[in-house]
């Protein structure tokens, strides 16, 4: 009744090719974006930004990046943590070597450097597939973490190997460092995520994205119809690493401020982001965000619910939380193996016929 496309005629190519062809979708998305940009910044405090929103936005960006590689191009990767570390260390080196550099440029260049590293580690994908590729990218994960721990140049020979983000401003507002305002950090990450989500959506609808999907669905058939596997696979690795590198850069500079490579960018991060993509939905932009929200927000929600709501012991709550997370992941994968995005799609289809389903 409410969600119905009857009467919405598409009279131009432009309206036919719109990202959200249904008017109701557009309204919802625009309202959501408007609230995120215009309302939320006035209400965020340190807790909301540092504990909830920043990890959500940053892991959303990382999941989006990985989804391009795994979900759209079908190349499995376990190197996400390592690639995020490349982004983080690249931005540390850029921030300390060029103190005047604009933060947007720092984030973009960090993404660029990660893209180069990512394509390098993507080269084996031309020869090996599936599990073997997963092992090759796992090697990337361990190699990169080892490298940043071993070579002093990456952490400016600091005694402990930790990197710390210096204070940087954006339009006169402090963006990084301990005194940065919560809403500045939030808006900065939100803007980057919004712009690059839009770019990703258009990439996967275009020629490049169709090439990726052709390779994913059947690489030999794709090759026969003229898709070049070298360029396609490497471009997927490059674009994916670009996003993941930006996420790593933001994680280090805006969110945490001080990072130790083994702890923050370990193998568990690679798995976390991969789970986000799988739970959210492979090959879906909105699924990446849903997966990130599921794995970032649910533990915090459960914790606050059990500890503050029911007065449970924090350690008991933690054990229950680990248990519940596992159960929920299994539940969702059984109910809908294609992820939360598919559940959302089914809901929308049902809603179209509501209240007179046939």
């Amino acid at each position, binding site marked *: 009744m409410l969600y119905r496309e009857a009467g919405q005629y598409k009279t131009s190519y432009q309206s036919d090719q719109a990202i959200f062809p249904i008017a109701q979708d557009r309204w919802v998305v625009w309202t959501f974006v408007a609230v995120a940009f215009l309302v939320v910044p006035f209400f965020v405090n*340190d*807790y909301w930004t*540092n*504990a909830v929103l920043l*990890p959500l936005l940053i892991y959303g960006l990382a999941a989006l990046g990985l989804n391009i590689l795994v979900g759209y191009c079908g190349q499995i990767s376990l190197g996400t943590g390592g690639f995020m570390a490349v982004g983080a260390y690249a931005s540390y080196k850029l921030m300390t070597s060029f103190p005047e550099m604009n933060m947007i440029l720092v984030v973009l260049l960090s993404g660029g450097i990660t893209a180069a590293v990512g394509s390098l580690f993507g080269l084996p994908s031309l020869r090996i597939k599936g599990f073997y590729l997963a092992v090759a990218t796992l090697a990337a994960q361990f190699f990169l973490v*080892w490298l940043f*721990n071993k070579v002093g140049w990456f952490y400016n020979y*600091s*005694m*402990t*190997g*930790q990197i*710390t983000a*210096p*204070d940087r401003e954006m339009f006169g507002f402090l963006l990084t*460092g*301990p*005194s940065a305002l919560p809403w500045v950090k939030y808006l900065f990450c939100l803007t980057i995520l919004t712009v690059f989500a839009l770019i990703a959506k258009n990439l996967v609808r275009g020629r490049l994205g169709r090439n990726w999907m052709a390779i994913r669905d059947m690489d030999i058939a794709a090759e026969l119809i003229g898709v070049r596997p070298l360029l396609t696979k490497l471009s997927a690795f490059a674009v994916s690493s670009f996003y993941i590198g930006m996420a790593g850069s933001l994680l280090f500079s805006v969110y*945490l*401020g*001080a990072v*130790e490579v*083994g*702890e*923050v960018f*370990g193998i568990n991060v690679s798995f976390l982001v991969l789970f986000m993509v799988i739970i959210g939905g492979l090959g879906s932009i909105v699924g990446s965000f849903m997966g990130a929200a599921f794995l970032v927000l649910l533990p*915090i929600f459960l*914790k606050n619910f059990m500890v503050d709501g029911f007065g449970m*012991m*924090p*350690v008991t*709550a*933690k*054990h229950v939380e*680990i248990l519940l997370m596992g159960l929920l992941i299994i539940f969702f994968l059984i109910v809908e193996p294609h992820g939360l995005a598919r559940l959302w799609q089914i809901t929308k289809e049902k809603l179209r016929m509501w209240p007179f389903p046939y």
Partner: protein
Amino acid sequence: MKLKHLTAGLAALAVAAPLAATTAQAYELTIPSLVYRTGPYAPGGIPFANGYADYFKLLEQRDGGINGATINFVECETAYNTQQGVECYENTKNQGESGALVYQPLSTGITYQLIPKASVDEIPLFTMGYGRTSAANGKVFPWIFNFPGTYWDAASGMVNYAAAIEGGEDKLSGKTIALVYHNSAYGKEPIRTLEELAKKHGFKLELLPVDHPGQEQKATWLQIRRMQPDWVLMWGWGVMNQVAVKEASSIRFPMDRFIGNWWAGSEHDVTPAGEGANGYLSATFHAPGADFPLHQEILEKVYDANMGAGERERVGEVLYNRGLVAAVWTVEAIRKAMEIKGSNEITGKDVREGLEALNVTEARLAELGLPNFTYPVEISCSVHSDPGTVLIQQWDAAAGTWHVVASGIEPDRSVIMPLIEEDSAAYAAENNITPRDCN
């Protein structure tokens, strides 16, 4: 005239009112405790958290709080993970009337994370014997306290112990000392000092990193077997300690030449190696065991009332005692802060003042029920880590207890202090901090 009297009376009332209010309605002190009872390091985190919690429970039971103010003890689970630590910090920092008074972040990662943040939020960090060593320089790090000793004190104390056993500092020359360390910020801390000491005493330093989590150390100990070092020092944590002790015993490395630092010397580190661990040494800054009046009081008033945070038998374990002594010093700082302020309505800012004026003498320790338990501590504006004296304890596998074999080992502060100056100056320059004047 009448009006004047009235205003004077009102003013007097206004001054008196808060004093009256404090006696009528108790002020609440928020003490956050960031614990890790889950995750890879939980075996080390649980006893520490229990010791910390039990002392506050005892104060609640026995005194009803601290100087008339009640205690709001907030435990938050970090799982030793930086991101969860940040969540805990943001969640607890503004709780209650007082806001969080002082943090014990426990993990090196969370500590590094909180050093700049806590300074901005004006909450002191008490990183007892861990975290950033150069935070001992109070001029650059006014909000960070890392007494009673730093990792550099520990490293130097361990080398001095080795020298004493060898028969004098000059005997170290030509010897080989290997450092087996957790390949992280924590494990890398002592390297700088050991390098300086190697230069000074003429011993050869061999660095052997072990990657997290340290489950696999065959190669490391094969190397040690080949290089035959005279001493092995270890900066380990979690499962790495147990594996190292086991491997050392399996290559028959003499255990009384193997010294762990104060996070590599608790019961669960040595018990898996069984008899083989007998004689293993570890540096520490407090005595092991439950034979102190304070422990007896805790057992009586907390555990007998079924309010203990952990198991009764585990009161007095090394890491339990460490959590306990952390709580004791924290409470002494809170008392000092109340004394300076002249009221018990203190905030994090006052606790910083209290920590900076802290002077816990042996007499005070005895009064608290901890005679000959640890060293007296005296903090000043410029020195946030005192005294740095090291104890060496040894594991007796047959009895299943640690006992102290050497005490009062002074670190070589003539080597350490210039390094602290240098590193803190680098931090100050990197973060545009002007060191404050302490005179």
